[in-house]
């Protein structure tokens, strides 16, 4: 979450709430209230959801179909006298009505009707009971179904609302992911570009370099034995800026960047290699001021190391220094010159030496 901008102690709660609401709007793209989300869920589903999957008029469909089922009808069967004598033919009906008194002389139709009705009613009651039982059963099942429908309606409605909300959140998250990935791409490209720029930057020429200020660990000129100096014409404080490292101890890490892969050397080490004056020191002189822990090894293996270094240099092809990115116009580019920058091309590197100073940047002078 973003921070608030509180400029003074006199805060304004209304203003803070406006900021909060603006941020919420920014997050979700639009300022939807719960009510609006519900409206969107019921009306404009196709905007957020796949219309092929869910019908947008789902809610209306549910509402339309929710008609309660009617109660079961009761069975009522009754035979009247008119039913027995009645006919659709008017002539026959009139004759029957004329002869009805005659018929009543012989039989009592009312009694017959009554008995028949009683029997029919008894049968109807039995049937009615059975039918009512069946109807009630179905009716109850219909009612249960209708109640379930309302529950389904609630569930689906809530699902639709939640889906809408999730869909909005999903789209927002997608946008954020895109934004973050583009930022990351940009940063990567930038980092790569910066590395490339620095990697191929030509080393400044030694005579043109401005004299750096003395560092905190710089040694006053008088304190350094004269014998340790490499160039009589080089100012003492320039050495201080170079950590007063003897050039004969230049390590692999001090090789020019043009000859190295990106991973071989951190960028911070590069300046040390660039500013190193060309080696005029003997290996003995160089090892004398190295890291104290290494110094013991150096003194012990001095002769061996010097021999190995000389052997390596003999293996170098003539002219390789100039092509290998050494500092042009300096003594270091002369093949066979001890301590020359760029004098160890990648192809000729015969693995890490175990002789200390070749691998480790020397800190002569600064360790005193």
């Amino acid at each position, binding site marked *: *979450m973003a*921070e*608030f901008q*509180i400029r003074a*102690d*006199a*805060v*304004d*709660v*209304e203003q*803070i*709430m406006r900021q*909060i*609401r603006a*941020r*919420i709007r920014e*997050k*979700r793209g639009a300022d939807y*209230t*719960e009510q609006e989300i519900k409206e969107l869920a019921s009306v404009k589903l196709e905007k957020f959801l796949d219309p092929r999957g869910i019908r947008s008029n789902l809610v209306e469909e549910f509402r339309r179909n929710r008609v309660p089922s009617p109660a079961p009808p009761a069975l009522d069967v009754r035979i009247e006298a008119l039913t027995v004598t009645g006919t659709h033919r008017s002539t026959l009906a009139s004759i029957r009505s004329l002869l009805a008194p005659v018929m009543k002389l012989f039989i009592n139709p009312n009694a017959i009707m009554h008995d028949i009705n009683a029997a029919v009613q008894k049968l109807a009651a039995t049937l009615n009971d059975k039918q009512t039982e069946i109807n009630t059963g179905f009716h109850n099942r219909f009612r249960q179904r209708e109640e379930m429908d309302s529950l389904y309606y609630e569930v689906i409605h809530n699902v639709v609302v939640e889906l809408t909300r999730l869909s909005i959140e999903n789209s927002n998250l997608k946008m954020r992911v895109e934004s973050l990935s583009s930022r990351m791409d940009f940063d990567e490209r930038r980092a790569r570009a910066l590395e490339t720029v620095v990697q191929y930057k030509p080393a400044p020429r030694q005579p043109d370099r401005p004299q750096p200020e003395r560092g905190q660990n710089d040694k006053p000129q008088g304190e350094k034995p004269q014998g340790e100096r490499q160039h009589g014409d080089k100012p003492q404080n320039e050495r201080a800026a170079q950590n007063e490292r003897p050039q004969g101890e230049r390590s692999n890490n001090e090789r020019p960047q043009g000859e190295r892969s990106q991973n071989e050397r951190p960028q911070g080490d590069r300046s040390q290699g660039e500013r190193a004056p060309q080696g005029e020191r003997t290996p003995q002189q160089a090892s004398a001021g190295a890291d104290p822990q290494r110094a013991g090894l150096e003194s012990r293996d001095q002769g061996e190391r010097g021999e190995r270094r000389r052997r390596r240099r003999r293996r170098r092809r003539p002219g390789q220094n100039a092509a290998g990115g050494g500092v042009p116009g300096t003594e270091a580019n002369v093949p066979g010159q001890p301590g020359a920058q760029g004098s160890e091309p990648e192809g000729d590197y015969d693995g890490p030496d175990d002789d200390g100073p070749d691998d480790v940047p020397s800190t002569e002078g600064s360790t005193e």
Partner: protein
Amino acid sequence: MKIAIVVQRYGADINGGAELHARYVAERLARHAEVQVLTTCARDYITWKNELPVGEETVNGIKVLRFPVTAPRNPDDFGKRSVAIFEKTHSLAEELAWLESEGPTSKALIKHIGRIQAEVDFFVFFSARYYHAWHGVRAVADKAVLVPTAEREPSIGAAIFGPIFRGVRAIMYNSLEERAMIQAVSNNRQVPGVVVGIGSNIPERVQPWRAKRKFNLKRPYALYIGRIDANKGCAELFEYFLRYATMYPDGLDLVLAGSAVLPIPKHPRIKHLGFVSDEDKFDALGGADFLVMPSPYESLSMVALEAWALGRPVLVNGNCDVLRGQAMRSNAGLYYESFEEFAETMYALEASGPLNQVLGRNGRDFFKRHYAWPVIERKYLEMFERLKKEPSKTTIEPLPGWFARRKKNVPPAAGVVDAAPKGPVLR
């Protein structure tokens, strides 16, 4: 000066909002006047059952007279009558029956008020919506000072309360919003009124580490103090907090102090302390990042004032006009109306954030300026002095006749309240 405080329940262990308010006011006014408290024998605000002994008692040095409740409340009957009054067109007789059903019905208390009216200078009635206040004010209108403690809820729109709000000598409001609402529903602008509120007994020093150690509170937390009830907005609070906890695993915990009526969700970041002592309450409040007050209905939140007194900001429900108005006027709290706002304001108010200290400081200043006891006492005493000097201009309106009372022409109370202006009052 002799003052009688009339309240529905009273006791050192009764912590309802209005009841505690009444006790604090009684104890403070006792420094300046002769104060007695008239109340019922009830302890439970739902049934009003007689649980405390009838007669005189002394509570923290204050004389308390208790009167029996004639009949306990029948919640079913009261619920049905409430629906009829709040949502349907009804008659005054139905409202009176509803008031009787609401209780606490104590005819002995009302008779006693009438009996001693000559001996007392002012009767201070707490909680306008209850039986004792309505009948008590009608018995001694020219000496009645009302502390309505009215929330924005439908009962306040009942027609029987209009004459009460217009007929008392003075009204001590809890907030600007309460005053605006009562004036809108009863048109009583001519009645002297002042927004007072209430102070609190804030300890001079709190020891948050003690509460943290006692209750094993290792992570930063937001604190809720009060009854854990759906009516207090706790259901919504739980829903929002569970979503917040899912979204922000490193966010604050929620600590609840108070008795639970609502089931509390089981979650590792929700801690329920139960009912705590005042000392624990203030210690826990001192250690909290802020107080959260989710209630949508409040006339005044005492715990919010206590939080401000301790320099803690408050997060309130924006749907409650009173709390929102106080947060805005004090510049000492934020409010929320949706989950998104809840999550953002929770984040904004964390103690490590830039707002917490500033809002807390504003809260402390706001409390000192408006709710410190000297300020509250002065407002009460000035009102009594004013009423003593001014003759009573108002008279209580008589009830309509038998037939008029039974005429169904009174609009639903909820509609009356809805029509009243809403929102916080900033000036």
